[in-house]
């Protein structure tokens, strides 16, 4: 693990997130506000992810974490504020453009293509950067063969990577919950992301499985992918992330290294409660 990359100069949470003009900023939330009628789900959120880090997003239920993901991936459009990815604004971009631009995600409630096999699910992700379209598929042009072969090989490799290659031919709805979550990760990885967003990937895992997942997330980071992680399991979050932002009621209440966040009284009061036995 290369911890080095994560320890930046600033870790103070107080000033608005404009404090990261570094060239290695990958994604920047700049004063993002998102309202649903009367509910303010995000309230002037600012933070920045750096390339290559594992970044945690935590906070009580309903704090706005998933909404953050949805704003980044184009599912919701912020009421105000900016989201920049590699210097470019994401506001108003189509969902598939954002994905091709390098952001991939998983869902809090698993959303696979239930009747497609595990392999096909991953291939859909791999297709994101292929170009075969109707004409080349219709006439079986060389590009079709090349991309089909590549996509298949790559997808098998990813299934192996997440540890479910033996299920490649199984229809995804028949996989167990844990396998489905892994498959979601493989599918997201297949899109060649620069940034991978995981929404509670460990929900419903037992401690042993969580341990596996922790290893997997590190492995992903080691391939050069930046990871943004939403998770309620503190052992996992504290064990794997480089930096953490804490939300409450749509506001950022803390930002810093795991150690800093864990000891932050505001976070303890709002989220952690009595220090968990897990910690």
């Amino acid at each position, binding site marked *: 693990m290369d911890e080095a990359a994560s320890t930046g100069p600033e870790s103070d949470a107080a000033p608005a997130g404009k404090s990261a003009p570094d060239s290695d900023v990958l994604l920047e939330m700049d004063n993002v506000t998102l309202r649903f009628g009367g509910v303010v789900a995000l309230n002037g959120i600012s933070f920045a992810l750096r390339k290559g880090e594992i970044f945690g997003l935590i906070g009580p239920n309903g704090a706005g974490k998933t909404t953050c993901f949805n704003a980044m*991936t*184009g*599912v919701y459009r912020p009421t105000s504020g900016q989201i920049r990815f590699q210097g470019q604004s994401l506001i108003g971009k*189509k*969902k*598939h453009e954002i*994905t*091709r631009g390098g952001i*991939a*995600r998983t*869902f809090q409630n698993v*959303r*696979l*293509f*239930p*009747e*497609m096999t595990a392999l*096909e699910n991953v*291939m*859909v*992700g791999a*297709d*994101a*950067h*292929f170009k*075969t*379209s*109707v004409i080349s*598929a*219709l*006439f*079986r042009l060389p590009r*079709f063969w090349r*991309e*089909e072969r590549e*996509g298949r090989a790559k997808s098998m490799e990813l299934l192996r990577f997440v540890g479910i290659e033996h299920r490649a031919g199984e*229809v995804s*709805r*028949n996989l167990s919950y844990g396998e489905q979550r892994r498959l979601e990760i493989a*599918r*997201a990885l297949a*899109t060649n992301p620069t940034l991978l967003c995981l929404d509670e990937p460990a929900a419903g895992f037992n401690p042993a499985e969580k341990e596996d997942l922790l290893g997997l997330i590190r492995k992903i980071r080691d391939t050069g992918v930046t990871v943004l992680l939403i998770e309620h399991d503190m052992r996992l979050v504290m064990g794997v992330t480089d930096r953490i932002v804490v939300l409450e009621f749509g506001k950022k209440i803390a930002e810093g290294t795991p150690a800093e966040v864990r000891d932050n009284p505001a976070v303890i009061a709002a989220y952690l409660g009595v220090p968990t036995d897990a910690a």
Partner: protein
Amino acid sequence: MSAIAEKPAAGSGKSSRQLRGWLGRQPAPVRWLVIIAFVAAAYLLPYVGEVPLIGPQIVTTGVDWSTVLFEMSYYVLLALGLNVVVGFAGLLDLGYVGFFAVGAYVTALLTSPDSVLHTQYGWVVAIPAALAVTMLAGVLLGWPTLRLRGDYLAIVTLGFAEIIRIIATSATWARGDRGFSSIPHPPGKTSDGTPIFGVTDAIPYFWLGLTVVIVIVFGVRNLDRSRVGRSWLAIREDEEAAEIMGVRTIKFKLWAFAIGAFIGGLGGVMFAGETGFINSQTFILQFSILVLAGVVMGGSGNIAGAILGGALISYIPNRLRGIQGPFDTDLYEYRFALFGAMIILIMVLRPQGLIPSRRRAMELKDREKEAAPQ
């Protein structure tokens, strides 16, 4: 029903699955040989009446057998096209007949002496224009409806088809019920100078139709087994998730519409070229619904299923023609009633269709056992 037993899409679902399994296990040359044999048999269908015993059972009695075969060929074509839209991409289209109509009408407008355009092109010349216009119509229909989900899409497509029908009926240039006559037939002469595509003999039309069907089957199959087909499937399963995985849903949905429209339009072009006369009465809504029933009955999402379904929906009513029913009636009179009953029966017995796609068959078997006691 047995008429279809000779076609590649053969027989009952069970044996077809065994057949497919068996076929799958054969080396490529054998597979091709079997396929070629089936195709050859299909081309010989006009003469099936000569086959002793079973032949006469198959051939229709009240209506010319070759004409029925030709009709089957364009119904199959329509089913194949609709299968792309509904079966592959999961876009429920209740107004598919609209494209059939557009194809036929553009042909008529360009070729018939009755047309306001006075171009009087030949049939072949009209084809590219007709297909281009239908594809455009497909995209035009697709574009505004992209935001609509499932059943809303269904009603809008139904609305579009009705709009086309009403225009065909009521707009002066479309000539309504008066229609367009003297639409030219496909070109070509035999050695003795008589046209190949005449009016009294429909066999050449059937062969033409069958050939087109075969070409389309290959095209559609190629699409299905590619990134395009995968994208359609993903869209069908979870559109938003697909988009978030980078699938350009809009593009592929439009393609589905365009391809479906293309194939439907082709059916229309062939129909116009054969009858030589079209008017607004042909393109009724029930027609779309019938084709949809064919697709689903055959096995939505499966090419062989679409072929079988399309063939059945045109064969069965025609076969009933000329058969003595109760009270001194022609069974043809009861065709839709019988047909409706058959649809219910088939769907209840085989909810996934007669020849389900392998995927759907599996799915169903799983789902079935899961069903909780009601």
